[in-house]
C-alpha cells in the first residue's frame, strides 16, 4: 500500500494528468453552459468522453509504465514480490486517471446536472477508463519497445472507436435477411465503447438517439437488466487485460 501511495503521488503530480482533469472540466462546463436541453448535453458529453477517455487512458497508462521501467527494475531488486510492484504501478495509474475524471467530469456534473443520468455517465466513464488503462498496461508489459507499444495502443483505440462500428454495420448489412438480434447484442458486448454508449442510452430512454444497437438491447432486456449486464461486461473487460498483464509481468525479463 505504501508503495502504491508513493507512486500515486508521483502520477497525480504528472503534468499530463493535471492537464487532463483541467481539460475535462473546461469541456464539461462549457457543454453544460451552452446546451439548453439536458438530454442533448448528456449525449454530447458522452460522445466526447467516449473518444477522449479511452485515448487518454491507453496513452497515459502505457507511456507512464514504459517510462517507469528503470524504477520498476530497481524495486524488483528489493526483497519484495513482483506482484506487489505490479499492483502498485497499475493501481496508481488507474486511481490517478479515475481521480482526474472524478474531478474534471464529476464536479461539473454535480453542479449542473446532479441526476441518475449524470452519475451513470460518470460511472461509465470511470469504468471505460479502467478498461483502457488495463489495456495500456497489458501492451506496455507485452511489447518491449516503447515506440511500437505506443503504436499498438493507437491502433487499439482507432479500431475500437472507428473501425469496429464500421465492420459491425457492414456485417449487419450483409446479413440483413437474417434475424440479427443476438449477433447485434454480442457484437456490442465485445466492444467496451459500444457497451458504455448503450449503457447510458438505456438509462436516458431516448430511442431516437439510441440507434439500432440500443433499440435491440432495449428489446432484449428491460432497462435494468440491460444496464446491469453492460456494467458487468465492462468490469470483465477491465479484468481480462489486467490479468493477462499481471501474468506477463510476473515472468518478464527486465
Amino acid at each position, binding site marked *: 500500500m505504501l508503495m502504491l501511495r508513493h507512486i500515486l503521488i508521483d502520477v497525480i503530480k504528472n503534468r499530463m494528468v493535471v492537464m487532463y482533469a483541467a481539460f475535462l472540466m473546461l469541456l464539461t462546463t462549457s457543454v453544460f453552459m451552452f446546451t439548453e436541453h439536458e438530454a442533448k448535453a448528456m449525449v454530447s458529453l458522452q460522445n466526447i468522453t467516449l473518444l477522449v477517455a479511452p485515448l487518454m487512458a491507453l496513452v497515459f497508462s502505457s507511456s507512464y509504465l514504459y517510462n517507469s521501467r528503470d524504477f520498476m*527494475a530497481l524495486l524488483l531488486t*528489493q526483497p519484495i514480490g513482483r506482484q506487489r510492484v505490479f499492483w502498485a504501478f497499475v493501481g496508481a495509474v488507474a486511481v490517478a486517471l479515475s481521480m482526474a475524471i472524478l474531478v474534471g467530469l464529476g464536479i461539473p456534473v454535480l453542479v449542473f446536472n446532479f441526476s441518475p443520468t449524470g452519475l451513470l455517465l460518470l460511472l461509465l466513464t470511470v469504468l471505460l477508463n479502467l478498461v483502457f488503462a488495463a489495456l495500456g498496461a497489458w501492451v506496455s508489459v507485452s511489447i518491449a519497445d516503447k515506440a511500437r507499444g505506443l503504436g499498438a495502443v493507437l491502433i487499439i483505440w482507432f479500431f475500437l472507436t472507428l473501425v469496429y462500428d464500421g465492420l459491425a454495420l457492414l456485417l449487419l448489412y450483409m446479413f440483413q435477411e437474417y434475424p440479427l438480434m443476438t449477433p447485434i447484442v454480442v457484437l456490442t458486448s465485445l466492444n467496451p465503447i459500444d457497451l458504455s454508449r448503450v449503457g447510458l442510452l438505456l438509462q436516458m430512454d431516448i430511442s431516437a438517439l439510441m440507434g439500432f444497437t440500443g433499440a435491440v438491447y432495449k428489446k432484449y432486456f428491460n432497462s435494468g437488466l440491460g444496464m446491469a449486464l453492460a456494467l458487468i461486461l465492462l468490469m470483465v473487460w477491465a479484468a481480462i487485460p489486467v490479468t493477462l498483464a499481471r501474468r506477463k509481468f510476473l515472468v518478464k525479463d527486465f
Partner: protein
Amino acid sequence: MLQIERISKNFGRFQALHPIDTCFLAGDSVALLGPNGSGKTTLIKTILGLVSPSHGHIAYQGMRIPANALKELVGYMPQIGQYPENMKVSALFKLMLSLRGKSINDCDTKLYHAFDMDAIGHKTLGTLSGGTRQKVGAALAFLFHPRILILDEPTAGLDPHSSAILKEHIASFQSNDRLVIITSHVISELNGLVNKVMYMMEGRIHFYMGVQELVESTGQAQLEKALVAAIGQNTIKERKHVDA
C-alpha cells in the same frame, strides 16, 4: 560465495548467455568486462532476479536459496536511470526503507551522508542531473549492509570528486566475507578496485583470472594494456583449439 550453475538465457532465437558455469568467491572484487551485447548485463540481471534464466541456477554458499532471500543480501546500483519525476529524494529513501522494514538508524549511511542526501531531500528526482541521480543510486546500494554489491557503470556521469568518494567507499566495503561485482567501460577506473577480471564475449566467459595473474602472464603492468593483450592471447588460443 555465489555459484553460477550452468546459467543460460535465450531471448527468442538470440542466445544471450551460453551455459555459464562459474563461481564468485567471498572477498573478491570482480571487474565484469566485455563489449556491448556480450552478455554481462544479462548475467548481472540474472543474479539480481530481473531476468529469469532459460536454464541453470544461482546458488549462495552452495545452496539454492529463494530469490527474495538472495535479494536481501544484494545492494545494486543501476546505470543512470529514470526515477519517478515528481517523487522527492526523501520520499524515495523512505519508500526503500519501508520495503525492507528498516529505519535509517539500522542502515549504512556513510555514503548517504558523504553525498549529502539530506541536503537534496526536498528536491524531486526529475530535477536532478544525471550525476546526482547516480549518487542517489549509489547511496541506496550501500544502505542495507549488503553482502554482495553489484555496480553497473558506477562512475559514468559522476564528477571526479564524487567518483573518488564512491571508489573509496567501494574499497572500504571490501572484506573477506563480501563480494563486489563492477561493470565498467572505463578500465582505468577500475585500477586498484578489483582483484579479478571476468571478460565476456558473445555470451561466454572469455577469460576469468586474477589481476596479478593477468599482469604477469601478459608482461604488461597497466591493467588496460594487460587486458588488451589477454583478449588477443585468448582469442589465438581458442582459434588453435578450434583448428585442432
